[in-house]
Structures are given as C-alpha cells and as structure tokens.
C-alpha cells in the first residue's frame, strides 16, 4: 500500500547534492593542481572567485539541469500558469518561469539569482496529490523564497565557508614555506610536513562542519519565513499546512479506521511510540520538522480567524 508520495524524496535531493558535490570536488582538485604547480596566491584567488561567480551565474541552470526540471509554457500547463499568475498579481510580484519535473514524488523548489530570472519548479506528483488551494500554498512558499532572495542568502553563507576554507589552506602553506604570498616551489620540499598537514585537514574539516551546521540553521529559519510569507500571500495558512502533511505523508497518520472497530481490537490501548524528538537529525536537516511547521501555520490560522 505504499504510495509513491509517501516515500521521502531522496532522489531529487540526492541528485542535486551529488551535482554540487562533484562541482565542488572539481574546483578543489583544480585549485589543488594550481597550488601544486606553484601558482601564486593572488592568481589562485582570482581563479577561485571567477569559479564562484560562474557557479553563481549558472546556479539556476545547474539546478534545473541536475533536477531534470523543464521550463513549461502556458500552453503546456495552463492551470499551473494561471494559478501562479493569480498569486503574483495579488501580491505585486514579477512572474517567475515555471518548470515541471516528471516525477511521482511530490516536491517543489525555487531557484534564481534575481526575482526576474527566477524559476519555480514543481513535480507532476505534487500536482497530482494537491488540490488547487494547497498548491497555491506551496507556490506561495516558493515565491517567498524568491522574494526573500534565499538563494542569494544561502549562496553567500556557503561562500563564507568556502573562503574560510581557502584562507586556512593558504595560511598553512604560508606558514609551511616561510611566509609571504609567493609559494613558489610549493610542489617540492614536501617531506616533514605530515603532522602539519594532518592538523590542517582537521581544522579544515571542523571549519567545514561548523559552516555546514550554520548553513542548515539559516536554511531552516528561511523555511519558517517562507511558510509565513505563503500564509500572508494566500491568506490560507491551513491549506499550506494541509499540503505539508500530504507531502510528508503525515496525513496518512490520521487514521481512517472507525473508533469502534479499533476499540474492539483493543488496539486503542497501545500507546503510540514516539521516537522522541530527533534533535540530532534536526541539526542536520535543511527543513524544520513538519509538525513544527504545521503547528506554526495553525497558530497563524487562528490569529487570522
């Protein structure tokens, strides 16, 4: 009885993470080669910044490509276009491009460097399980990400961690070879630096890990903000709450079996096992737990009524 949308959407996330991971590794290898070849600090900084700018510039293309999203015209998806147009018109926002991903798993994301060039992508599975009001809630959430420039915020946050990483590396090289920006001959004279390299790796790992957690925390906060923005755009927080429960499969937890039947089986007295609040898992996740988001949306609904 497991329906496709009950599964977690690991596929899409995995594809995108893998893409960016490969890109990052490529950069590091490339820069590593430059360092090995003895290119100086300033040229490397210039090359690294150019790479980061290029990634920023092409970020939406990379995201669309890695997720398999196709930009669709109004003729192909008139209802979806109409729905987005209604929300942007009501809230005085520029209309984003609309992309569709052919996947049974319900999901949506927004990307783009500016409001004008932004793209909102939804999966076919999302359109299948949500009614139009719930879909409006999800689109409102993504539009808020665009309005709040969350792609920029997260990219900047990641940029700092990248810069910290490079600074540390060069700092160590500088210390290793007697200072200066030079670094000429960096490829030779490698013996005896084993301990230093280990420390360097450890510090780099810690830096990366901490920035990873910080980025996740920022991201979770932006999710709450996007929920709030969606509620304001549509005026129907309960619909987004409903959509979130459907997407996460939480809706399945509201039983359909009659109380009288359940009582007869004595199953009622089994205390449902709650696997605690997985705070560690929460630290690593980019999205806050659905229960918490639904709770906040219901509070908004109550204050609106």
């Amino acid at each position, binding site marked *: 009885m497991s329906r496709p949308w009950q599964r977690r959407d690991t596929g899409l996330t995995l594809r995108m993470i893998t893409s960016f991971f490969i890109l990052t590794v490529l950069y590091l290898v490339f820069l590593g080669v430059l360092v090995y070849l003895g290119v100086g600090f300033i040229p490397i900084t210039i090359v690294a910044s150019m790479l980061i700018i290029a990634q920023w510039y092409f970020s939406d293309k990379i995201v669309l490509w890695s997720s398999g999203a196709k930009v669709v015209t109004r003729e192909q998806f008139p209802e979806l276009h109409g729905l987005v147009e209604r929300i942007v018109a009501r809230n005085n926002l520029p209309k984003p491009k609309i992309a569709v991903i052919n996947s049974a798993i319900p999901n949506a994301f927004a990307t783009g460097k500016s409001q004008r060039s932004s793209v909102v992508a939804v999966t076919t599975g999302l359109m299948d399980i949500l009614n139009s009001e719930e879909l409006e809630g999800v689109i409102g959430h993504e539009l808020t990400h665009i309005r709040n420039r969350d792609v920029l915020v997260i990219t900047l946050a990641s940029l700092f961690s990248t810069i910290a990483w490079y600074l540390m590396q060069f700092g160590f090289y500088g210390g290793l070879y007697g200072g200066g920006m030079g670094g000429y001959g960096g490829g030779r004279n490698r013996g005896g630096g084993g301990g230093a390299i280990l420390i360097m790796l450890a510090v780099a790992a810690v830096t990366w890990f901490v920035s990873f957690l910080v980025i996740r925390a920022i991201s979770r906060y932006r999710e709450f903000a996007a929920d709030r923005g969606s509620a304001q755009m549509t005026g129907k927080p309960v619909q987004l*709450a*409903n959509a979130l429960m459907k997407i996460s499969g939480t809706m399945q*937890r509201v039983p359909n079996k*009659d109380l009288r039947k359940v*009582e007869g089986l004595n199953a009622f007295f089994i205390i449902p096992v709650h696997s605690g609040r997985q705070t560690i898992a929460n630290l690593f996740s980019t999205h806050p737990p659905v229960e918490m988001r639904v709770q906040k949306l219901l509070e908004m*609904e109550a204050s609106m009524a």
Partner: protein
Amino acid sequence: MIDFLLKKLGRDGSIRKSKGHREEGIFSLTSGYITLETKLGLTSTNRCGICIKNVNGTYFSDVINEVQEFLRISNSEFRTEHILINDKYGYLWIMIRGISIEDILVASNGIADVITERGFKDQMLAAVFEFRKTVSPNPNLDGPQVDSPQFLIFNYNREKFYPFVPLAAQEKRRSDLELALTSIISKEIPWETDMTVWYPMWDMPFDKLKN
C-alpha cells in the same frame, strides 16, 4: 434510586461544581462553543451522541434504564429529548437533543456520572457533539460541503477532544476543516494532539433524532 438521581440533578449550577476532572473536559465546551461560533461560524446543532459498549446482562440494562429515568426526570429542567440506538458495531448510542448546548452538556455529563457510579466507566467510548456552519466569517475555508456536519469527538478513555469532519458518504475526511478546527479551539478545550488517535466514527445515528 430516585433520591440518587435527584441528588445528581442538584439545584441550579450545583452539578458543575461537583464534577471531577473528566466532566471538566466536556464542560470546557460551554465556553469553547462561543469561539467556534465567532471564529469559524460553526454553531452547535444541540445534538450529541454518547457511544457505549454494550454489555449483555440485566445489571447493565438496569443501568441503562436508570440513565433513561435520569433523562426523563431532567427533561423538565434541561429540555432534552433522547433515543437509544444499537449500531452495527454492537455499540449503544444515547442520542440527545436539547434547546441549547448547555442542555446536552449537562445531560451527557449526568449520564456519564450515572454510568460511572454503577461501575461501567470503561464501557463509555465517546461523546460526539455536532456542529454546522451557518454564516462564514472566513469564506476561504468553504469547500464544496459547506453544510455537512462537523463533529467534536470526546474520547472518554483519553479525556480529550478531537475533530471529525466526514466527507459525505465517502468514508473520507475533510482534513483542512479538521485542521481549521484544531487551530481555533485546541488551546481552549482538552485537545488530542496525537493525530494518530483521531479515529473517525462513520455513520453515526444523528439522523435518527427527528428535527
């Protein structure tokens, strides 16, 4: 026996004060229903059903007779009508209709008292209160079934309320309306926060009460 029943009835308001915490649960609706009316446009139909697991044996039927006797006596004070229905699950329903929500709250509370004192507390499954939408202060929430009843189910075992909005005749639920109910009233009355025990009750015999 009549003495006991009259004692249960008490004099104006004394019933409420003599209640334990379980009854406090149901009585929380005396203020809660105003919130439902002002914020969701839901009004009480002043009908409720108490669902009791049937027991074979004369002692239990004596208790049920006692309950009916209690309702008959209280009729003059609380203006309620009632009928008994046996459903296909083997449960006994005491369906009550009053003039105001206070009538059915006091009556259902009295019934619970009688049954508890006779030792059948564990047989009581749920008390169900019916609401309907009249005017809509929030047109956004109106779905296709604006007029379909919305229920608050009080589970006697867990002593908490939860929402149940059936989608007419489909054994499906309007979860958006259930969430809307939750958002409005969960802070005011004892609320079941664990959604996994929001068990529905299909085909409740409310239509057996004539209007």
